[in-house]
């Protein structure tokens, strides 16, 4: 059974935007990083590694571990902890080795 690892504290009156993780719409707040959003869905892994395909999720949130890599609006291996969410952004989980076409 998979449960959500993280949740947001409620704050009334905050505006929301929508982005897509593997084509599924997800709500986020302006100013958040993509990595923070990737930690909320029930499916916890945000990528799998190129070496052994083992699952990984954001770990350091400060740009030094490179475990939060994902395809962001077509750009593969993007450090999602350094990217701020935008309306309509499309995130694709990066599974295994990145493709040269991505």
């Amino acid at each position: 059974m998979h449960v959500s690892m993280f949740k947001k504290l409620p704050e009334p009156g905050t505006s929301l935007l929508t982005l897509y993780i593997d084509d599924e719409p997800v709500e986020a707040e302006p100013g958040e990083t993509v990595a923070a959003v990737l930690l909320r869905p029930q499916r916890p892994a945000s990528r799998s590694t190129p070496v052994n395909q083992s699952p990984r999720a954001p770990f350091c949130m400060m740009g030094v571990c490179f475990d939060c890599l994902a395809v962001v609006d077509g750009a593969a291996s993007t450090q999602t902890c350094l990217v701020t969410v935008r309306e309509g952004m499309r995130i694709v989980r990066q599974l295994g080795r990145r493709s040269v076409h991505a």
Partner: protein
Amino acid sequence: MSRRFDVVVIGAGPAGMRTAIGLRALNMTVLVVDEQAAPGGQIWRAVETVAATPTGQLLGAEYRAGADLAAQFRACGAAYEAQTQVWQIEPGWRVFLKCNGQAEAVQAAHVVLATGAQERPAPFPGWTLPGVLTVGAGQILLKTSRQIPAEPVWIAGSGPLPILYMAQLLRAGGKIAGWLDTSPSGGWRRALPWAGAALADWAEIGKGLTWLREIRHAGVRRVRGVTAFRALGDGQLQTLEYEQAGGHVTRVAASVLLAHEGVVPSVHMGLALNCTHSWNTQQSCLAPDLDIWGQTSQPGIYVAGDGAGIGGAKAACVRGELVALGIGLHMGRLSSQDAAARAAPVRKTLQRLLRLRPMLDALYPPRADIATPSDDTIVCRCEELTAGDVRKAVAIAAPGPNQIKAFTRAGMGPCQGRQCGYTIAHIVAAAQERQVAEVGFYRIRPPLKPLTLGELASLDINEEST
């Protein structure tokens, strides 16, 4: 023509902001670049937008204090470019940047490395599983996203940060399953030689004691004397296993584990520039050798803030002031008498701010098995190499960290040794019965951050012929 500045400052945390303000007061042209979307560094992440909110309230006064400096920084007249990474610095100085898929080289007479610190990589079995993060990551999620662990969280490690984060998390209504305290017993005895400093800085000590009181009042379970732990699960963290002094092992259910074993200076840029570094035994890390103005062994390259040695946000600001004065002196904006007169009270403040540090180092040494992880522990997260893999390579010959890199690919993944460098050095040192300081560190090569061929191609190199 490439853009040209008197000074390029790398990092917009406390040190970078304060350096820029000081340089602007001396009328120098300054570019500040930073990876994050807003100024503040890790300690004051998102402080401009969060300080005045309920989240700013629960994060505390020290966090909110960052908003003033950020406002001064915004008004100081330095060019500031966010979400920008530095991937190479060449003599001259040319600082190679990338932002939004576009690369650029800018020129600077002086470069200030204000890249701060990172959490000390502290490998344990299962630390790559989704659900395992650092305490720093947990705190950043609280600062930037008002995000907390959904279920009661396990905290493991030692140092002031876990205590602060637990207090903040409790104020936010979060739940803590337990705190695996890995600091070796006898902390106060080790700290005793600095009792004088502690008394003089009672306000600082008092803050820590207040956090501990909040944690105790909330009834958080503190498991003392934890010597080792491992994270287990299928695809994500499900079970946590910990061992206490005496060998007693306990298994508990867990969905999120936040671990922390102190912070270490970010040294990659200075190492790549061949600045000399020394091993700091008390903080178990490398730190650059600096003169009284924060200048490295490479004239024109300075280090301000925690990158110079861990001292905290206030000390980082003061070090930034000193670097600004030093550059003012070296650029002829200040006479040597003027610079010395201005620096004297700043140095006194810095001394006072660093007085407590040796005591904190003595209280919270990193857990012993960080340096000697079990064979099944992944040490290089990127290349998924275990301590056992590395030990096998060490047994082949008598290699240093750079031969291990060549043999195994440890340190050759995207993080470029930021997570495994110290562990590899410790494993090599242990196998060869040498001091880790003698064994050395990876040779750090460009690009300092991964760069796509497209980004490289976007670099305007026509300027070379002009």
